């Protein structure tokens, strides 16, 4: 089964939120999901400790540079999807995880700073593709977007598209329910209502479906 690596050297880009939304929606759709928490801030673990994990999800904490390849290998087996949540720095751990990815997702807020730093993850993927002589599919997802798209957002999206970067549609909007995952744990479907829950669930499900389609098409 595929390994999905969530990578951006920029902190606060929405990596852990993206990982949780993706993992919980894929599990809701019927997949077994193993989530690897490689972030020293333990964001995934904090979420996992808040409430019983949803069905078909396991979280492994404290995965480090020295055991990332072995851990992915151990769980990259038939019947389950591995989602790797990385730390928000440029590290060897990131290089190693990307080398084992079937899909790299780079979450990015639609700001110049996020785009500038986030692009380094795309450069790393390109370098590793060349070094390993293997295609590593990668996509960008905009996070914390607003209902009305800013000029900066449009400009960055156009710039990335011109460079041939695959942008996931829909982006992940700024939603109370997404940030509340770290308060209540679990998934969007079992948490107390936070703002527009139907909108949040639809957003997360369509995002996960877009990721699934890329995995299925690339298989």
């Amino acid at each position, binding site marked *: 089964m595929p390994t999905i690596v969530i990578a951006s050297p920029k902190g606060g880009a929405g990596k852990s939120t993206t990982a949780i939304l993706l993992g919980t929606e894929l599990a*809701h759709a019927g997949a077994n999901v193993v989530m690897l928490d490689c972030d020293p801030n333990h964001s995934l673990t904090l979420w996992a400790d808040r409430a019983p994990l949803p069905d078909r999800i396991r979280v492994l904490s404290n995965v480090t540079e020295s055991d990332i390849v072995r851990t992915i290998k151990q769980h990259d087996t038939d019947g389950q999807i591995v989602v790797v949540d990385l730390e928000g720095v440029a590290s060897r*751990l990131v290089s190693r995880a990307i080398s084992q990815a*079937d899909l790299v997702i780079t979450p990015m807020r639609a700001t110049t700073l996020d785009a500038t730093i986030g692009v380094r993850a795309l450069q790393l993927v390109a370098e590793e593709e060349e070094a390993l002589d293997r295609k590593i599919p990668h996509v960008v997802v905009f996070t914390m977007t607003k209902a009305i798209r800013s000029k900066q957002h449009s400009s960055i999206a156009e710039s990335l598209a011109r460079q041939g970067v695959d942008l996931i549609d829909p982006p992940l909007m700024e939603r109370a329910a997404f940030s509340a995952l770290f308060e209540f744990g679990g998934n969007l479907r079992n948490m107390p209502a936070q703002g527009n829950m139907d909108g949040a669930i*639809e957003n997360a*499900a369509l995002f996960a479906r877009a990721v699934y389609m890329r995995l299925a098409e690339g298989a």
Partner: protein
Amino acid sequence: MSDGKAFNIDLGRLKSREKDRSPQAIEKAERAGEELGFVARDGQKRRGRKPSPRTGQVHAKVMPGIPEEIANEAKRRGVQQGVLIEEAWILYKIKSGI
């Protein structure tokens, strides 16, 4: 609130690609990363002797010859002098019913 599945996953369509996990391949990936500033960040293991857990101190004057005897006995057993003082204190507590 919506509770239905937005989509169903066909597990048969999800396949993992073959990946090279040899040390040589990992080293190639690391080299590619290092050129872009993706370097080792994990803390290196500290070398040398671990710090002693004995952080307390006693300040005792004793009769001449006793310090040498304590030092020699500690050396013979391969322990710190503090270990002998701790043992002596335990015996004293037992004897005194403390």
